[in-house]
């Protein structure tokens, strides 16, 4: 039997949704019929609108997806202006204030507290500068990710930015690919460092070379079926296909159509293409692709560059994360700036936009580590650009504990979450900076916190993986975290193994402190953390974690999901001001 979601999508999906959004906006939140809410909120996702969690009814998250995370001059400023005007909540957040935007792990921007009534104006303001929310959520081509410095990087072999743009232009608002069985995440990597994170995407293009008719051709190898969600993490599998840049769009369309036709529409939990790859294996997938979806003869895989992948590869001298000042291939520089948990305040956003426009091209790029990059800075402008107090906070040279931290949305807005995430991770990193020294030679240390097993913060590819849970402490249920170790990408990517379960959240900083001290004591000379973890079994590792209370204090130990907003003075669900009319006045419930 088709699911309700499939039936709703059959009725109305894709660009047809737009008129209805305009209609509801015109007539107001209350005009959405009570018995159609589930259907409309599911459909709104296709336009990048996601209804916030229980207690926050009538408020939406809005996601804007620039391909490859590239915001052209003017686009970043426009998003800051939109956030300024439309993305403020009923109360403020203790760490981040009221009014900010979130840079996401898929090089997108998320705004919160958006009202349906404002959406048409926001769409217009976005379209005016060439931005869009189309397919940012929902069952379709999501934002295309890639090397964040594509087109500018010295390590580039093939122009990933061009392909990301082509894919975006071809598959956004493309009726044949609008309604897929599930989300469809695509990555394009062009460099020899592997910073496109292709391995954790549904479809990955990776740089490769192949001798065809006696000539060496550069292009891409294709992998399919990666993803992290639901205790079922998979790395994308090599399907033994090489494709030239000219034909990459065609192959992508073939695989997307194959997924459209063969993906499981009866069971959403089994719908992602990783499960089809499980069932068929890469060989059958290739055969069906060739026979049913591609008109020319597919080449077998070429020689890839995976042996040189250094991004998040765990080596002590590994790849930078694009944070810092680096030379571009044209002699200019790019400046990668740390954004704590990806959250960037509106006033700071204006400052950064000003600086980028005054001293550089004004282009801003988003990374998969929730950071931003200002590109095209001439040598003699670097110092002038950075001479602004805003870059003390959004620093090109942050402490490893800060540059290594990633956190998902969590119980602040997300229905699935089990724990509070972003504020907690800010507090963790602050405490670690003040209290823990990193062992010698460790300059990169990734700690990723996800509020549940959906894994939006990509915890399984971090040195220390944290995942929301609950446990009992002093007789009371409290927010807790599972701790995993040793994940990362590189030539041979590795998922973290979950070695310590249900550690009360207030004991996690102490656990990390002890773990690092134990690592320092027991490691061999120059051994990286990832090597150290790989050389030990889970039991041994669990013994090294030693959770412990410290001077760290955690204000979110209670059930933050039972609040309407975890940081409100009166935080009970009954105190919620939602749903509210466009001007923020609460709508009384009629029962």
């Amino acid at each position, binding site marked *: 039997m088709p699911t309700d979601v499939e039936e709703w999508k059959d009725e109305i999906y894709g660009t047809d949704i737009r008129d209805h959004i305009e209609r509801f906006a015109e007539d107001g939140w209350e005009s959405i019929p*009570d018995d159609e809410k589930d259907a409309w909120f599911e459909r709104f996702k296709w336009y990048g609108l996601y209804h916030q969690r229980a207690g926050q009814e009538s408020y939406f998250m809005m996601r804007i997806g620039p391909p490859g995370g590239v915001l052209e001059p003017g686009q970043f400023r426009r998003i800051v202006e939109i956030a300024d005007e439309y993305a403020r909540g009923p109360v403020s957040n203790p760490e981040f204030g009221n009014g900010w935007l979130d840079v996401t792990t898929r090089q997108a921007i998320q705004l919160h507290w958006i009202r349906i009534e404002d959406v048409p104006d926001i769409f217009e303001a976005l379209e005016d500068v060439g931005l869009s929310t189309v397919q940012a959520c929902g069952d379709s081509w999501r934002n295309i990710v890639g090397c964040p410095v594509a087109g500018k990087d010295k390590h580039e072999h093939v122009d990933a930015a061009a392909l990301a743009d082509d894919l975006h232009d071809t598959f956004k608002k493309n009726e044949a690919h609008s309604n897929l069985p599930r989300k469809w995440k695509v990555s394009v990597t062009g460099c020899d460092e592997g910073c496109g994170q292709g391995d954790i995407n549904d479809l990955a293009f990776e740089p490769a070379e192949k001798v065809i008719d006696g000539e060496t051709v550069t292009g891409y190898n294709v992998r399919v079926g990666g993803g992290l969600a639901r205790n079922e993490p998979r790395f994308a599998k090599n399907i033994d296909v090489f494709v030239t840049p000219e034909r990459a769009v065609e192959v992508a369309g073939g695989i997307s159509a194959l997924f459209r036709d063969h993906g499981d529409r009866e069971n959403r939990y089994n719908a992602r293409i990783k499960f089809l790859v499980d069932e068929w294996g890469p060989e059958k997938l290739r055969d069906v692709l060739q026979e049913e979806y591609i008109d020319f003869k597919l080449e077998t895989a070429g020689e890839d560059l995976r042996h040189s992948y250094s991004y998040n590869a765990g080596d002590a001298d590994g790849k930078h994360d694009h944070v810092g000042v680096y030379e571009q291939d044209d002699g200019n520089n790019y400046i990668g700036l740390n954004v704590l948990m990806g959250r960037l305040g509106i006033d700071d956003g204006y400052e950064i936009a000003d600086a980028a426009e005054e001293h550089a091209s004004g282009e801003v790029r988003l990374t998969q580590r929730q950071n931003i990059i200002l590109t095209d800075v001439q040598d003699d402008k670097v110092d002038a650009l950075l001479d602004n107090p805003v870059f003390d906070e959004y620093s090109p040279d942050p402490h490893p504990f800060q540059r290594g931290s990633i956190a998902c949305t969590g119980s602040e807005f997300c229905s699935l979450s089990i724990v509070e995430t972003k504020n907690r991770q800010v507090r963790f990193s602050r405490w670690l900076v003040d209290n823990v020294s990193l062992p010698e030679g460790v300059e990169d240390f990734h700690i990723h916190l996800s509020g549940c097993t959906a894994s939006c913060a990509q915890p399984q590819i971090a040195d220390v993986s944290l995942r929301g849970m609950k446990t009992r402490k002093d007789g009371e249920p409290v927010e807790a975290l599972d701790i995993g170790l040793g994940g990362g990408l590189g030539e041979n990517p590795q998922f973290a193994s979950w070695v310590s379960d249900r550690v009360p959240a207030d004991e996690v900083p102490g656990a990390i402190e002890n773990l690092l001290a134990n690592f320092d004591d027991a490691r061999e000379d120059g051994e990286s953390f990832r090597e150290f973890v790989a050389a030990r079994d889970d039991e041994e590792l669990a013994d090294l974690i030693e959770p412990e209370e410290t001077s760290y204090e955690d204000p979110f130990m209670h059930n933050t999901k039972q609040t309407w907003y975890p940081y409100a003075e009166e935080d009970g669900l009954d105190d919620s001001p939602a749903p509210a009319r466009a001007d923020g006045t609460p709508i009384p419930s009629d029962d």
Partner: protein
Amino acid sequence: MTIALRTLDDGAWISVNDSREVGVSDIWTLPGHEFCNCETPHVLLEAFSGVDLRGVDTHVIADAVGMCIDCGTRDGIDSLVVGRIVDGEFKRYEPGSVQRPSVAASGDR
């Protein structure tokens, strides 16, 4: 009157007549459920995988995935009674209140 029942947002919650009624991340008390070896399992619900109506007095029954916060067993839970329909209205059960499988399964055990 027909009742629209479904799970949404990847099992994050149960919708009854287009209203979010039961969410994940609460701890449910399940004595006698044989979920784990604990005398009274306290199970954190992580996701709902299905929902249905059952019985004459119309219990709302969910299938879910959860983990016991005391012993760490993770498993599926069949037939968790999350509430009932009374005069067309959903009445939610409290997660902490006692859940006996005998009530839950009166339809098919």
